[in-house]
């Protein structure tokens, strides 16, 4: 890995003479993430390389693709969205699959730490509104400049996930019940499709002492309904126990919506946001269920998958609580 990254660093970083500190950060099902430092005459340049695993093209159905992700990072930065700076793209000669190199930001991404660590006490009250403002900037990126991406509004997304649910073979009646509500209440497309991040949540954000310094994980980005990002952000799964702070455990919906409206110049459609919150919860439940199933069949023996599988019931409860509350 080091020798491959050495070649990448020489090409992407001006004045690079070598690399050090090569380590794998996470290894997802479909992607891998490595940290390394390029050595230059000016000092050390902290970097991340993100690459697709060659053997899992199927697992990436619905993904934007590495070339699109790289293009989005560049456009987002130009549009005032905090993101790690793109340093270069991988080539076939690098032998690392498709992917790109970006700046390694300093900060915290773990949701519970962002909510509880006293280092963020000063900035935390601003974060919900800041997230709203950042979402509005993502949604405003000029359509003509975007890389090719799939377009999916509410009903398309619900149908797509209905198919995944069926393919997974789940027999959880709550999922069939929630899906019916989603299909019956899917909001019709309103206005043009805009760029949505589609995984904008506490846990995919890099936070520093000054606030949000990086929006990460653009893998699921697509064109669609801007309210998708606001709804997913409010799911209880990403509030990490701060149940009464709907905006990612960080603040109120009002704060998020005000931050959004301030930049977008138009008010938030709370009913649409609610649909997307239900949809995000449904999607997460189907994902947890399929991770548990991958453990059961032996396809993925990682204990973490088993643990996530046993969290699908949290989302089942959440769906009931959202759609047929008992108190």
């Amino acid at each position, binding site marked *: 890995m080091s020798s491959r990254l050495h070649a990448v660093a020489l090409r992407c970083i001006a004045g690079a003479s070598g690399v050090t500190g090569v380590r794998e950060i996470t290894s997802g099902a479909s992607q891998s993430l490595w940290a390394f430092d390029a050595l230059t005459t000016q000092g050390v340049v902290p970097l991340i390389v993100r690459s697709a695993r060659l053997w899992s093209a199927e697992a990436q159905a619905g993904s934007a693709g590495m070339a699109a992700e790289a293009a989005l990072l560049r456009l987002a930065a130009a549009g005032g969205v905090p993101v790690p700076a793109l340093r270069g793209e991988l080539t076939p000669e690098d032998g690392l699959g498709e992917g790109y190199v970006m700046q390694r930001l300093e900060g915290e991404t773990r949701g519970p730490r962002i909510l509880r660590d006293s280092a963020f006490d000063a900035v935390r009250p601003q974060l919900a509104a800041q997230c709203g403002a950042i979402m509005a900037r993502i949604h405003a990126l000029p359509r003509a400049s975007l890389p090719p991406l799939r377009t999916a509004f509410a009903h398309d997304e619900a149908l797509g996930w209905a198919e995944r649910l069926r393919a997974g073979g789940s027999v959880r009646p709550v999922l069939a019940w929630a*899906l019916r509500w989603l299909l019956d209440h899917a909001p019709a497309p309103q206005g043009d499709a805009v760029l949505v991040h589609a995984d904008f949540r506490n846990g995919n954000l890099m936070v520093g002492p000054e606030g949000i310094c990086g929006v990460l994980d653009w893998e699921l980005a697509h064109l669609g309904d801007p309210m998708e990002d606001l709804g997913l952000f409010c799911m209880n799964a990403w509030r990490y126990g701060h149940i009464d702070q709907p905006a990612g455990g960080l603040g109120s919906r009002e704060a998020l919506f005000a931050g959004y409206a301030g930049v977008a110049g138009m008010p938030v459609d709370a009913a649409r946001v609610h649909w997307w919150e239900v949809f995000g919860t449904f999607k997460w439940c189907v994902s947890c269920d399929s991770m548990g199933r991958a453990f059961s069949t032996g396809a993925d023996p990682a*204990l973490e998958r088993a*643990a996530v599988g046993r969290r699908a019931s949290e989302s089942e*409860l959440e769906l*009931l609580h959202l759609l047929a509350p*008992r108190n």
Partner: protein
Amino acid sequence: MQDHPSPHELLEGVIRFLRDTALPRLDDRAAYDARIAASLLKTVQRQLARSTEDTAAERARLQQLLGRDDIDMEELNRALFEQITTGSIAWDDTRLLDHLWAVTLDKLAVDQPGYSTYLRVREHG
């Protein structure tokens, strides 16, 4: 009858070993998995302690909702899944909602008894 230690006691011993003895000696990645392993064994303990009455009640409700007398829970759940999907049972049917709530709360008691919404619902319910 199987003599002691009981399954619960055996699991308790293994959990203690994982947390107190093994975990401090493991590197970051293995320690992370050991923590997950201990918490999964806790889940198994809770599931073993679950009364067979809960399962019987779930089966009886399913049989009543569906008007069938199957015994196999997966079959019954699959049948309910299909009836909901096709709309042959009303989305807001009171007995259906009562069933979905009851079975989900039972699951949470085993899977994640500390989950925020579970605690909130129990508090008010």
